């Protein structure tokens, strides 16, 4: 059985360095298996988040050879074995320890989003075609890889003004729900800063669920915002009726 070298970041908020670990490579092995091997045999305190081990829960995100990946779905045999495999924590969030980062900011953003609220008197009938469009967004496993690669967060660190692709996907799922009656457009504009997104599609490229984040979520939401705020007819209607507050339907 061939061996591979894992070059893993070890450290915490105070700093750290990479350390090399030798791991025997079994057929079909994924990077998360290799990390578990290191825990069991060499570094019992190696901090790694994981749960389902099959791409369903989105816990084990890391940067493998510089690429943001779910480690449970990254096969060892797709990585060059003649050099060490670099495993780093995702970069956009503060390090807790080793491969574990503090992603609590995401849960704070999520709390700002008004929940689903059915239009009054709806009949609970929907067609599969209507539902298909929204089910794409609801596939999201919250691995936060999209948040990790988004320039607005990763380079510009606009954590205060911006929601990030994950939460545009969530809002899209609510806004396009066939029976929802709440508008979240003002939130998108003012608190989630959707205007800061310049649609480079980095988020779409890394999504392990293959959600078309930019094309199907962000761009239609940007269009809604334009319709609502900059379309002259909408503008007049708003002036007369008053701005639609979140929750007003």
């Amino acid at each position: 059985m061939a061996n591979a070298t894992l070059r893993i970041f070890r450290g915490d908020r105070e700093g750290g360095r990479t350390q090399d670990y030798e791991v025997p490579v079994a057929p079909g092995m994924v990077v998360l298996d290799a990390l578990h091997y290191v825990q069991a045999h060499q570094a019992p305190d190696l901090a790694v988040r994981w749960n389902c081990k099959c791409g369903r829960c989105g816990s084990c995100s890391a940067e493998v050879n510089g690429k943001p990946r779910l480690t449970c779905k990254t096969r060892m045999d797709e990585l060059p074995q003649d050099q060490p495999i670099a495993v780093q924590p995702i970069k956009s969030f503060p390090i807790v320890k080793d491969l574990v980062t503090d992603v609590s900011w995401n849960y704070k953003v999520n709390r700002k989003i008004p929940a689903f609220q059915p239009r009054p008197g709806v009949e609970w009938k929907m067609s599969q075609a209507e539902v298909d469009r929204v089910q794409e967004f609801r596939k999201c496993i919250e691995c936060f890889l999209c948040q990790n690669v988004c320039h607005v967060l990763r380079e510009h660190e606009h954590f205060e003004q911006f929601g990030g692709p994950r939460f545009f996907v969530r809002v899209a799922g609510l806004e396009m729900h066939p029976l929802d009656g709440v508008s979240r457009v003002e939130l998108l504009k003012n608190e989630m800063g959707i205007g800061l997104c310049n649609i480079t599609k980095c988020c779409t490229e890394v999504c392990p669920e293959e959600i078309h984040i930019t094309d199907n979520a962000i761009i239609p939401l940007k269009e809604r915002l334009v319709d609502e705020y900059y379309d002259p007819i909408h503008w007049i209607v708003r002036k007369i009726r008053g701005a639609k507050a979140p929750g007003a339907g």
Partner: protein
Amino acid sequence: MSQYETHEHDVLIIGAGGAGLRAAIEARAQGARVGVVTKSLLGKAHTVMAEGGIAAAMANLDAADNWRVHFRDTMRGGKMVNNWRMAQLHAQEAPDRTRELEQWGALFDRTEKGDILQRAFGGHTYRRLCHVGDRTGLELIRTVQDRAVQLGVEVYMECAVTKLLKDGDRLAGAFGYWREQGRFVVFKAKSVVLATGGIGKGWRITSNSWEYTGDGLAVAYDAGAELMDMEFVQFHPTGMVWPPGVQGILVTEAVRGEGGILRNKLGERFMERYDPKRMELSTRDLVARSIYTEVKEGRGSEHGGAYLDISHQPAEYVKRKLPSMYHQFLELADVDITKGPMEVGPTCHYMMGGLRVDAETAATNVPGLYAAGETAAGLHGANRLGGNSLSDLVVFGRRAGLAASQHAGQVAEPRLDDDQVEQAAREMLAPFERPAGESPYDIHRDLQELMHDYVGIFRSAGDLQHALGELEKLRERAERVRVQGSRLFNPGWHLARDLRSLLIVAEAVSRSAQARQESRGAHSRLDYPNFDEYWARHNNVIARDGETMRLTATPLPEIPDDLKKILAEE
């Protein structure tokens, strides 16, 4: 007052899967101050692994379906040792609980008429599982997660409870630690709901993640609560078998629900020999044993399983109805399931047993302590039907949350006992203080091997005796476990604590399996292959008696005549 960070709630819920979150929603809706403690981040619990659907007799496709049929299917699937009242409430309330999810924003697949689509599943007479492709559990957890957050439930993420605190006979709260910083934390609560899921991490081949170490069962057992039906551990018939790293990962029953066929290496559709009527959609216990037997008798697939084939269905249909399976096999096993068969074999999946609870209120025998979902026993009897888990979570999660909040409204503030807190803290710190000792990973590996080899699908008196002897040795080794490194996010330290829970659970399973001298549902004894009259009328109940485990065969509650009539119908 304790020297540690302390939080106060009316209702404290331990576990943030479907049952815990549904309990939280209900308790909050009743006006209680609610806290939820979870070992992982919010939304990562094993509920996301439930793929096939939620069973509810809504009769959207098959007009003849109703709660009576669902009740009968559940009881028959559980080989009649289920708690009849739980099975009745579950069947009656599952449709409302499912519609409620839709009203909170869940989006199920639809029928032509625009209603919730339902699919066929093992042991269900009619098409009954409301579903979202093969990711129903994710839809459920997101829905209840968003609802709980919206209602203002406090969530303590990556926090683990190691001990329940008592005030005399009643519950007073819980002691735990933050996984991240390793600091200790104390919760004071009038009611506690345990919803910590299963125990699969005690077996080598399992569909369960690191979290499923039976924490809820162990802390409740320590606090004086009773365990029931612990011999009934479900081995799901279809886990992945190849490559080695993915062994045990779940292959949803929806593959068979959508028409998947099982074959051995000779190409025989072997279920014809074991259950010619229901074939692949027989109950899980029977399909798991059938695959196991085929392999034992030399007719297994290349890597020691069976072939499961869905490739006769149109490729687009497979990708639409089973998208997760399609990707899972393509990416992890280099198999395109639209073109060829999967290799599958049994994997430790689900605990039918757990805390003994009251059917109406989910209350344990300890005042103020409740349990729901996989942590509670009774609903599923000796074997759970697919799809009955998600419905269990919302039906009994709600009932637990309701009863827990009502209890909290009626009792005075509990008093926390500093001695109990200090004792709990000392237990957690001990593994750091030993100058020498074994790695928790080695003990865990040996425990998993032992349970897999001796307390697996088929059991015998000799094997169980051997297992109990070895468990004693493992317990001694665990008492000398040593942890390296600091308290900062240290998985070795966390495992050292989880081992304690697993060892209690492993002993309870082995003792109950030893006592039940018959084969029933998921419990198969090679030395007692048939049903037994006595055991048809008894549940095994376990309670702590000092340092020993006391096991009592307890008569099943008498089924009322009107329900007996339903059960007797064809």
